[in-house]
């Protein structure tokens, strides 16, 4: 029903339909979600930087015909420095951020556990997910993996453009029931019974309404009730009462026998299933590199985040800083080939800032070594993704993940978090319009 981006028309269309849907959705859903209805970039930066970090996300393909399948896989970590104003993920659901059900979700798993029910998740732990999507509505759709957290709303993963080709009318989602029925397509299943039953009762209702409405109505009846000489016995006659009584009996009989017939036709039914799934997080991997943020600035005119960090390698292999991930933006250190190799060709380009991550000293940390380095993530994405509005947030602590690689290419992940101090002016006269600086 909603989407979280404004980039192309299919997403815009859904924003419009979300506006329409707000009129339709009950108050229960309206209240917690209304604040998030205007796109992923409108989610506050602290929400995007310090909740669910998605990584290793892969799409098996990004173009399918109607009824074709896309498998989305990846991992996510729930950041330990969770915003204080958000409830903990006591109930979470692996969602699918799409502009309406343009793809049908046929399967989804968190760590191999079916994700048809909600589950509790733990902070500072990693989870693997898999979602199988089936093409349904032709078009170009922006689709995100996401985690819905009760009270915190949707937490979005990276969005990718998926193309569905063919004819919508060819779509089918068949299933066999445990009681033996074969359902050709869930989209239309049961509708014959719905139309028959609704139609029947509307017809009976119309008979009842017409029975009364065919007579002179408002003023004549009002006068007959209020003025001397009005004949009330003509307003409601004994035939009317008899007809009403007959209708009453017929209604009760139709409902009763309809209910009986339904029970005979479908003797085995189950109530809605509302249990909670139990999902164990992936085994805990100790942080090989401890990260302490000494200072961090966001340079407003230069659109760059600069951090001075002290790194301590407590492992037995070397560690080289390859990537800084925050808000689904992957700042990759171009000097580290293992990090560059992790970029999937299907990965959305807009989530890979071209300048990547600049590290003052990219040499690997030896086991036991401690080193203080400056890192810089400079990109217009800070503005276009509205991450720089962190300076307007009541909670301006930033967060993200740092990916380190050892000499064998093995990866370890460290959390990084610290307060962010904005720098509004700088000695080189750089501005947002003139990021290179020089005489203005």
């Amino acid at each position: 029903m909603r989407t979280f981006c404004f980039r192309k028309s299919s997403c815009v269309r859904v924003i419009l339909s979300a506006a329409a849907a707000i009129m339709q959705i009950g108050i229960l859903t309206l209240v917690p979600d209304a604040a998030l209805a205007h796109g992923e970039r409108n989610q506050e930066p602290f929400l995007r930087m310090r909740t669910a970090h998605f990584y290793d996300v892969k799409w098996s393909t990004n173009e399918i015909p109607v009824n074709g399948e896309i498998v989305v896989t990846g991992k996510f970590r729930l950041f330990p420095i969770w915003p204080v104003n958000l409830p903990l993920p006591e109930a979470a659901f692996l969602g699918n951020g799409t502009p309406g059900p343009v793809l049908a979700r046929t399967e989804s798993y968190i760590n191999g556990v079916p994700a048809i029910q909600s589950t509790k998740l733990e902070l500072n732990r990693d989870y693997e997910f898999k979602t199988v999507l089936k093409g349904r509505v032709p078009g170009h759709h922006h689709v995100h993996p996401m985690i819905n957290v009760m009270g915190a709303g949707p937490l979005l993963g990276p969005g990718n453009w998926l193309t569905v080709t063919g004819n919508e009318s060819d779509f089918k989602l068949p299933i066999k029931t445990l009681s033996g029925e074969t359902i050709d397509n869930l989209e239309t299943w049961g509708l014959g019974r719905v139309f028959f039953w609704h139609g029947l009762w509307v017809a009976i209702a119309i008979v009842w309404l017409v029975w009364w409405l065919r007579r002179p109505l408002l003023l004549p009846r009002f006068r007959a009730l209020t003025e001397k000489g009005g004949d009330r016995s003509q307003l409601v006659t004994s035939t009317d009462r008899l007809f009403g009584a007959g209708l009453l009996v017929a209604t009760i009989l139709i409902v009763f026998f309809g209910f009986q017939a339904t029970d005979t036709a479908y003797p085995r039914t189950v109530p809605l299933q509302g249990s909670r799934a139990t999902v164990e997080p992936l085994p805990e991997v100790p942080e090989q590199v401890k990260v302490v943020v000494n200072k961090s600035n966001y340079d407003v005119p230069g659109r760059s985040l600069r951090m001075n960090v002290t790194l301590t390698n407590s492992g037995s292999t070397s560690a080289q800083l390859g990537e800084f991930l925050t808000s689904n933006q992957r700042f990759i250190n171009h000097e580290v080939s293992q990090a560059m190799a992790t970029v999937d060709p299907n990965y959305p380009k807009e989530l890979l800032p071209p300048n990547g991550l600049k590290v003052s000293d990219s040499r690997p940390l030896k086991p036991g070594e401690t080193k203080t380095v400056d890192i810089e993530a400079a990109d217009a994405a800070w503005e276009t993704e509205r991450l720089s509005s962190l300076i307007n947030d009541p909670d301006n602590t930033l967060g993200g993940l740092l990916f380190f690689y050892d000499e064998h290419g093995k990866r370890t992940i460290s959390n990084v978090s610290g307060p962010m101090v904005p720098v509004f002016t700088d000695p080189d006269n750089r501005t947002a319009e003139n990021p290179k600086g020089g005489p203005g």
Partner: protein
Amino acid sequence: MQGGTSVRLYGLEWLKESARISKVFDLLVAAILFLAVSGAFHLHYMLTAGDWDMWIDWKDRQWWVTLTPIMAITFPAALQYVFWTKFRLPIAATFAVVCLLFGQWINRYFGFHLWSYFPMSEVIPALLIPGALVLDVALLLTGNCLFTAMSGAFAFALLFYPANWFWLAPYRLPVEVMGQLVSVGDYISYAFTRTALPEYIRLIERGTLRTFGGHSAIIASFFSAFVSILMYLAWWHIGMLLARVVTTPNTLKNFMGLTDKDEPAETAQKAIDGTSLQGRFAAVE
């Protein structure tokens, strides 16, 4: 009765021309009322029981069955007061729920299905007509709001679940999905995803009501029926309040030195001073 120029309606004499105009007036009011009740009742109903009514995986045996009749008996009760006491028409409940159903089908088909891609099987509205018919006939036969509440409003809620089961049952067949047992309705809503309405948001029966061998719909129906009696009476009286025509004398006119011809200036002056509240409000029943 003078041959061609007049006609008798319910014992009173009408000019033929007046009777004709009155018929046109009936049609106009009916059309306006149909749209107004469709809109207002729909809005009220969506804000109070909307999610249960919209989604196939919210129509559970506890909350849906309890809340829907309680929230749906409101407009029928208020309109019954007006239709019955002013016009002796026992059709208000049926009229109201037909209006509601009309609004819902329009909204589900155009808004949810065509515009937002949801399959119709996911967004079918509940059916309230059988209960409404019984409510109307109860008023017709008893002619009294208290007896209607105790019989008709009670039946309005009790009939709700069995009357909907006819079309709902196919969506409660068991299926196996990823090695788990769920109902067809659960799977439909899982497959055709709602981005901002995750599973845990659902307010559905998650435990047991610990009696009647697990037939929670029966307990829910009876509970709903008792509350519906109270709800019916409350909204009958809301209908009564809203049907009062209250006028206030135009005091501005008096400030400008004008007075009604047939109203003594003294009374108008009292109204301005606020010394006579009775002079300020005249209720017309």
